[in-house]
C-alpha cells in the first residue's frame, strides 16, 4: 500500500471529518439495541419505586447488584463465546469446580491465595480442553460443553464426595474479596466494575478480541482472511472458563463454602442475560454492556418478586413473562426503527 501513496489522491481532510461526524451519529443509532433494554430497566425501576418505597434504598440497590455479580461476570465470558457463534454450557460447573479445588487445597493446608491460583489454573485447563475440542477437532460447542459440564461437575463431586466444603480459618485478605467493603461499597461490586470496564474496552477495541467478531460473523471468511480460527477459539473458551473460575472463587470467598452444586443453572441464566442484552446465538453480535444490562434486568425482576411477595408458585410464571415481554418490546422497537 505504501507504493500507492505517491498517487495524489484528492483527500480533503474536511471530508474525513464529515464522515467522522456521521460516524458518531451512526454509532449512537447502533447502540439503540441496548437502549431499549435500558429503557425497560428504567421503567421497571420507576414502577417498583412507586410500589415499594424500600426499592430505591441504598441497601436494596447494593443488595440487588450484589446478587447479580456472579451472573454478570459469567455473562461477560459467555458474551465472547456467543459472539464467536458458539456457547458454553459448562460455565456453571467450572464455577463450582474452581471453588471446590481452591477450597479443598486450602483445607489441606495450602495458602489460600496459592490454592485460588490452582483453582484458576484448573478452570483454564478445562477451558483449554473445551477450546481444543471445539476449535481443532471441531466438535459442536453445544455437545462439547454439555459433555464438559458433566465431566467438570463430576470432578467437583469426586473431590468433595458430594459435601459442601466449609472453608474456615483462611486469610482475611482472601475473605475481603467476597465480604469486604471499599468506600462503603462491597469489593465484589468493584471487582465486577473492573471486569466489565476492562472487558468492554478489550472487546470493543482490542485487535485480538475483534477477531472473535470476525469469526462469529463469517467463519470461513475469517479463515480466508488469515485469522487462525481454531487458535482464537481455544482462547475464547479459556476466557469464558477463566471468568467462570473467578466467579467460583469469589463465591467461595463470599460464602466461605465451596459447594459442588454451586453454579447450577448458571449457564442458562448467563446466556439469557447476554441475549436480552442483544447478543445472538448465531454469532457476530453482542457486547459486554449488553450482558451487564441483561443481568441487571434479571436481577431486578428477581428482587421485585420477593419485594412484592409474589408466591413462589407464581414466580417462574412471572419471570418467564417479563423475559418474553422485555425481548418482544426490544424486537418491536427495532422493527419500527427499521421500517
Amino acid at each position, binding site marked *: 500500500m505504501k507504493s500507492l501513496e505517491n498517487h495524489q489522491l484528492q483527500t480533503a481532510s474536511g471530508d474525513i471529518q464529515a464522515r467522522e461526524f456521521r460516524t458518531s451519529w451512526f454509532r449512537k443509532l447502533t447502540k439503540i439495541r441496548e437502549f431499549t433494554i435500558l429503557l425497560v430497566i428504567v421503567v421497571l425501576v420507576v414502577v417498583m419505586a412507586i410500589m415499594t418505597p424500600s426499592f430505591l434504598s441504598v*441497601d436494596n440497590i447494593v*443488595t440487588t447488584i*450484589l*446478587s447479580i455479580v456472579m451472573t454478570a461476570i459469567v455473562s461477560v465470558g459467555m458474551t465472547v463465546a456467543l459472539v464467536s457463534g458458539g456457547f458454553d454450557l459448562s460455565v456453571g460447573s467450572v464455577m463450582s469446580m474452581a471453588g471446590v479445588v481452591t477450597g479443598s487445597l486450602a483445607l489441606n493446608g495450602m495458602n489460600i491465595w496459592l490454592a485460588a491460583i490452582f483453582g484458576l489454573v484448573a478452570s483454564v485447563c478445562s477451558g483449554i480442553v473445551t477450546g481444543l475440542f471445539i476449535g481443532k477437532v471441531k466438535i459442536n460447542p453445544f455437545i462439547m460443553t454439555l459433555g464438559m459440564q458433566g465431566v467438570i461437575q463430576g470432578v467437583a463431586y469426586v473431590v468433595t464426595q458430594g459435601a459442601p466444603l466449609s472453608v474456615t480459618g483462611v486469610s482475611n485478605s482472601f475473605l475481603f474479596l467476597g465480604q469486604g467493603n471499599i468506600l462503603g461499597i462491597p469489593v465484589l461490586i468493584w471487582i465486577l466494575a473492573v471486569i466489565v470496564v476492562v472487558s468492554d474496552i478489550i472487546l470493543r477495541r482490542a485487535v485480538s478480541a475483534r477477531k472473535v467478531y470476525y469469526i462469529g460473523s463469517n467463519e470461513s471468511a475469517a479463515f480466508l482472511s488469515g485469522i487462525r480460527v481454531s487458535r482464537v477459539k481455544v482462547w475464547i473458551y479459556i476466557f469464558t472458563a477463566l471468568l467462570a473460575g473467578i466467579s467460583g472463587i469469589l463465591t467461595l470467598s463470599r460464602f*466461605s463454602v465451596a459447594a459442588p*452444586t454451586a453454579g447450577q443453572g448458571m449457564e442458562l441464566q448467563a446466556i439469557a442475560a447476554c441475549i436480552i442484552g442483544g447478543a445472538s446465538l448465531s454469532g457476530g453480535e453482542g457486547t459486554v454492556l449488553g450482558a451487564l444490562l441483561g443481568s441487571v434486568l434479571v436481577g431486578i425482576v428477581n428482587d421485585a418478586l420477593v419485594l412484592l411477595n409474589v*408466591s413462589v408458585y407464581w414466580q417462574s410464571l412471572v419471570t418467564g413473562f417479563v423475559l418474553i415481554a422485555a425481548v418482544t418490546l426490544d424486537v418491536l422497537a427495532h422493527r419500527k426503527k427499521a421500517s
Partner: protein
Amino acid sequence: STGTSTASSGSSGAFHGSANETYYMVTFLSGIEYWKGVYAGMQAAAKDLGVKTVFTGAPQYDINQEVTTMQQVIAKKPAGIMVTSINAQALTPVINQAIAAGIPVISFDSDAPQSERYAYLGTSNVEAGQKAADYLGQQLNGKGEVAVISTPGELNLDQRVQGFRQEMSQKYPGIKIVAVQNGNSDQIKTAQVTSALLQSYPGLGGIFATEADEGTGAATAVKEANKTGSVKIVSFDTDKATLDAIKSGEITATVAQGTWNMGFWGLMDLFTIHHNLLTPVANWKQSGVDPVPPQVDTGVTIVTSKNVNAYLSK
C-alpha cells in the same frame, strides 16, 4: 473412593453373610451430602455382617430416572434394597416388583407406604419441620416475623415447610410467617432472596431454611446485612459448613435427622429378612406377618452451639 465396599472382618455364625452378597441403597438426587450419613450407617452394618453394599441412584430429581435405576438394580438380583422414594405413588409398583422377585426392600427417609416394603425407617419430614418451628418459636419468645426458604416441588422439603407452618400456627400464634421463598437449593439464589426479604421485612426475626445450601446462603446474606444474631436461622442437616456456621454463630441451629441409624438398621432388617433369621410367627411369609418393625422413627435432634462439637468430631 467408590460406592462399593466389602468387609472381610465380621462376626461368625448366623450374622455373617457371604462376600458376594450385595445390598443396594437407591436414592434420588444421589450426589447430595445428605445420603452419605445414611450410607455410612449402612456401611458400618455391612462391615459387621461381612457383606457388600452399593450406593447408586438418580443424579437428577427425576421420577423416571429413579424408577429406571430401581429396575436396573432389580435386574441384578441383589440380596436386598434400601430405597428412598422420590414419589410414593410412582415407586410403589417397582418396589412391589422387587418384592415379587424375592428381593427384600426397606424404605428409608421418604416412604412409599402403599407398597409392600417390609419397613420404613426415618423421621417424617413433617415432624422435622415441627421441631424446627418449636425451636425457633422458643428462641423468638413466641412473637415476631419469620420467613421460610425452601425449594418448592421437592416433596421432602415441602413436607418440612408443611410441618413448620402447622406447628407455628398451632403453638406460636404470635409468630407470623411472612414469606415462603424459593432458594432453589443454591447459595447464590438464597442469598439474593434473603437479602430482598431483609429489605421487605426489616423486623424479620427468624429464617427457616429447609436445605443445607439454603442455610449457608441465608447466613451469608444476613451477615452482609450486619444482622447476624438478630435474625435467627434454623437450617437443616449437618454438613460441615452448617456446623461451622453454628459454631461461629451465623446459624443458630440445624435439624439433624437420624440418618446413620436409617442406614444401619435398614441393612440389619434386609440382612435378617434375606437370611430368614426372624420367626415372629411361624411361616410369616405365608401368613402375611411383617417380620420386622414396620415403622421405625429414627428421631430428630436440634443441633445448636451447645451440642455442635459432638457432630463436628464425628
